[in-house]
């Protein structure tokens, strides 16, 4: 098993995606199928951008196991007041600054769900959010 951990700084778009990029490099080194890598890193990158866009800071923990990748993204931030709404395509609470970076179209969480096999959102308004997601290597692929 390979475990990776990254500290994410809220608001710093210059560094957004660095953790996901590192994870992609490790997955490539482990010879994981490139289509699976894409799904994993797109989900992770969406989550990483969400932390940068909405939270004060966060931590990304990735565990690469023989049959799957487990990813836990924990942030200290505003939390999500309405998870059901946040899961709808097009719903967004992103700031103008975030939209100017090309994000905040309300596609993040739905896209994470599409690219992973399990997604659990644990959130508390005014405290923060934890996303727990899993992608299996031999599951749900055509």
């Amino acid at each position: 098993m390979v475990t990776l951990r990254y500290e994410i700084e809220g608001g710093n778009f210059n560094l957004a995606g660095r953790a996901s990029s590192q994870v992609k490099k490790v997955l490539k080194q482990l010879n994981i199928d490139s289509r699976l890598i894409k799904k994993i890193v797109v989900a992770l990158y969406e989550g990483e951008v969400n932390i940068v866009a909405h939270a004060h800071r966060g931590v990304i923990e990735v565990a690469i196991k023989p049959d799957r990748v487990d990813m836990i993204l924990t942030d200290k931030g505003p939390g999500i007041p309405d998870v059901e709404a946040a899961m709808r395509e097009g719903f967004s609470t992103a700031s103008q600054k975030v939209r100017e970076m090309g994000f905040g179209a309300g596609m993040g969480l739905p896209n994470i769900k599409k690219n992973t096999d399990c997604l659990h959102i644990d959130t508390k308004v005014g405290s923060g959010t934890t996303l727990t997601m899993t992608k299996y290597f031999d599951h749900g692929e055509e």
Partner: protein
Amino acid sequence: MELEKVIQLLEARLVSGSIAGKRIDRGFCSDLMSDVLTIDTERIILITGMVNLQTIRTAEMADIQTILLVRNKKATPEMIRLAEESGITVIETPFSAFKTCGLLFTEGLKPVY
């Protein structure tokens, strides 16, 4: 379509990576990186006027090998550095997104959907 032809057609300039022998099958035009991340088609060219580091990061995550910057937008040195690290080809054209897409479509480049 050969990237060499894209450069010729769009009076474009290569600023990162190489075009030798490279081909693209489809094009996707968007300034919204959120939408780009939903694409799972291979060998596409991303046509965009969004110029920041996240354009390169998005391409890296979505396995997009070629980015075409329209409206005479210039890639920043940081973008070029990251694109080179990630093996991404970046091209700049003075043409608008509309004209760029029109020319590429007319020449047979297919849309993603």
